[in-house]
């Protein structure tokens, strides 16, 4: 028994030594700071974002890290609250050990972090926040340190409205979204995309995050008989909205960015949402070799399939690591310049580059629900 223990210890020590040699001891770990909602109403999204980031870092470390050093990431909870994010990111920046700040997840939070990273001169890689104003204020917009990896609502909704217009379905869209930068970016994006076709939203309504009852507003929307309803809700709000929509009999196809992968299975199977169209930066069913490998590895690691934010964090951390590698040093300005020159092969089958607003352009996925199932209609570069 004792010899078996010794054998195990020897094997363990050999593995540690092997890992140590893979990541040559070129210095202390390179640390990325991340601000995510790990508690609060959208914590389930924060958790998925965290898993995506952790997986990208684990893969990079398994390949020897970057610049011969191990990569680490510290997560700080922001509760999707800009004030909490400002507090934790200010603390992170004062510690001066982080080479870049990652994410924010909520649009309001990302917008609150932007002036902080600009003053500190640290790259900020936005993975999940979708507000168009983030990109408008970045690059030539003023903030040289913010890089938005996921597409803006405006670019996604442009792609969707073009698609709907081809089928004559772009008119008569009612909008219902959460009263936040996320929801308002959705209504602004739709308004602008429709304006290009001389069309308008049929109605615009916002609900307070966490308010569970939608029966009143759904009654009003159904009575107005719009052609489609653009719904901007996440987490428990989305689940409550879906259930109450189904209980009231639906009757109007959804559009915009409804989270079709999170619709309760029984509602999906009922066919009630057939005809729904959605545009998303990602869907797990995208049929590319890179995505299949990602879905399999993520599912094996986290015992659940990836969602949109898991993918976005995964690729944004990969892009950041790639920039550090190309910069050849951890100097923030060098990383910022390397980020700007990114040419990254996405698992969605396209090459991601940043434009003059530091906004990355990847494929948008146009989805529909047909026969109770989500079907990818196609991909369109944003």
């Amino acid at each position, binding site marked *: 028994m004792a010899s078996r223990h010794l054998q195990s210890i020897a094997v363990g020590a050999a593995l540690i030594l092997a890992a140590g040699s893979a990541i040559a001891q070129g210095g202390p770990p390179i640390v990325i700071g991340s601000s995510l909602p790990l*508690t*609060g*109403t*959208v*914590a*389930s999204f924060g*958790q998925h974002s965290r898993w995506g980031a952790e997986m990208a870092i684990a893969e990079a470390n398994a390949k020897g890290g970057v610049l011969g050093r191990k990569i680490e990431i510290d997560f700080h909870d922001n509760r999707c609250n800009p004030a909490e994010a400002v507090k934790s990111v200010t603390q992170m920046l004062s510690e001066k050990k982080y080479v870049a700040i990652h994410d924010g997840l909520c649009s309001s939070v990302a917008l609150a972090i932007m002036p902080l990273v600009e003053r500190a001169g640290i790259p900020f890689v936005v993975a999940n926040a979708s507000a168009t104003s983030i990109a408008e204020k970045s690059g030539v917009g003023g903030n040289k340190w913010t890089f938005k990896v996921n597409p803006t609502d405006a670019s996604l909704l442009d792609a969707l409205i073009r698609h709907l217009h081809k089928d004559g379905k772009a008119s008569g869209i009612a909008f219902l979204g959460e*009263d936040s930068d996320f929801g308002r970016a959705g209504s602004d994006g739709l308004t602008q995309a429709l304006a290009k076709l001389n069309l308008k939203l049929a109605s615009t*309504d*916002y*609900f*307070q995050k*966490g*308010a*569970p*009852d939608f*029966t*009143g*507003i759904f*009654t*009003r929307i159904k*009575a107005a008989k719009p052609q489609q309803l653009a719904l901007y809700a996440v*987490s*428990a709000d989305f*689940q*409550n909205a879906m*259930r109450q929509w*189904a*209980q*009231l*009999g639906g009757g109007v196809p959804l559009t915009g960015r409804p989270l079709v992968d999170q619709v*309760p299975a*029984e*509602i999906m199977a*009922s066919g009630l949402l057939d005809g729904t169209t959605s545009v998303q930066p990602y869907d797990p069913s995208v049929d590319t070799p890179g995505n299949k490998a990602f879905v399999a590895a993520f599912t094996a690691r986290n015992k659940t399939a990836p969602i949109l934010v898991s993918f976005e964090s995964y690729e944004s951390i990969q892009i950041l690591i790639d920039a550090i590698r190309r910069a050849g040093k951890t100097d923030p300005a060098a990383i910022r310049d390397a980020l700007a020159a990114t040419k990254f092969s996405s698992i969605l089958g396209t090459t991601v580059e940043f434009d003059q607003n530091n906004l990355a352009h990847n494929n948008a996925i146009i989805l529909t629900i047909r026969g109770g199932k989500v079907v990818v209609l196609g991909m369109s570069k944003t």
Partner: protein
Amino acid sequence: MDPSFLLQLLLNGIVIGVIYALIAMGLSLIFGVLEIVNFAHGEFYMLGAMLAYFVASSTTLGYWPTVAIVTATALCLGFVLYEALLASLHGEGFERSILLTLGLSMVLQNGAVFLFTTTPKMIAGSLTYSNIVLGGLRVPVLRLYALGLGLAAFAALFLILHRTRIGKAMRGVAQNRDAALMVGIDPRAVSRLAVAIGIGLSGLAGAALAPVYAVDPLMGSAFVFKAFAIIIIGGLGNISGAALAAVALGVLESLMSGFLPLVLVDAFAFVAMIAILLFRPQGLFGRGVRV
């Protein structure tokens, strides 16, 4: 205007109003007897819904046994809450009671986040999407059940308070704790029962609404702030006032949501609360008839 549209809004409003009442009555009872504002009330509603979710998803018990189990558990929890935390206040220290229940609320909410995560949980059963359809009107069956439970809870509470000795004792303690003690009423036993019933009602609300709304650790705060507004509008400690204010608020909010932006609808309860505090601090139905 289509009359069925207005009727649908009215019906939605009555149901949501009774749901508000179910939560507000427990809060009002605890304030009426102990003069404690229970900031953790929403968390007991959440725990009731969470327990209902786990009972429904891990057993084959139906809706009614689940409601009974959760309500009984919440009653017991109320006893424990009183003996463990609230009894030490001895009817004094209003500020201490606020800090204590606020702290308890945070512990329960964050404990639930830690244990259950914030991923919303949905109870799906055979009745989930069943509706009663009358012409153009639709009412989900589970909302009707919640409506029935709310009305039954109000009737039972009213009968307990006005037709039983223990109810008289509660009203006695609420009116004058020292005088009640002098005539042989044990204020501690009465307070313990009031807290148990109050928490039991929040558990009942959680169980009744778990199949209606998504269950998550933060769901308590959605209703509890509105419940505070309701008990202030109805008259602090006045259960009938709270119930009437809750139904009136539910109906008004629903009717307004048919025509006005939701942001204004959400603000209505709090604007009404501020107006009441300024112009009729004793509430619409006053404190004279409390509990």
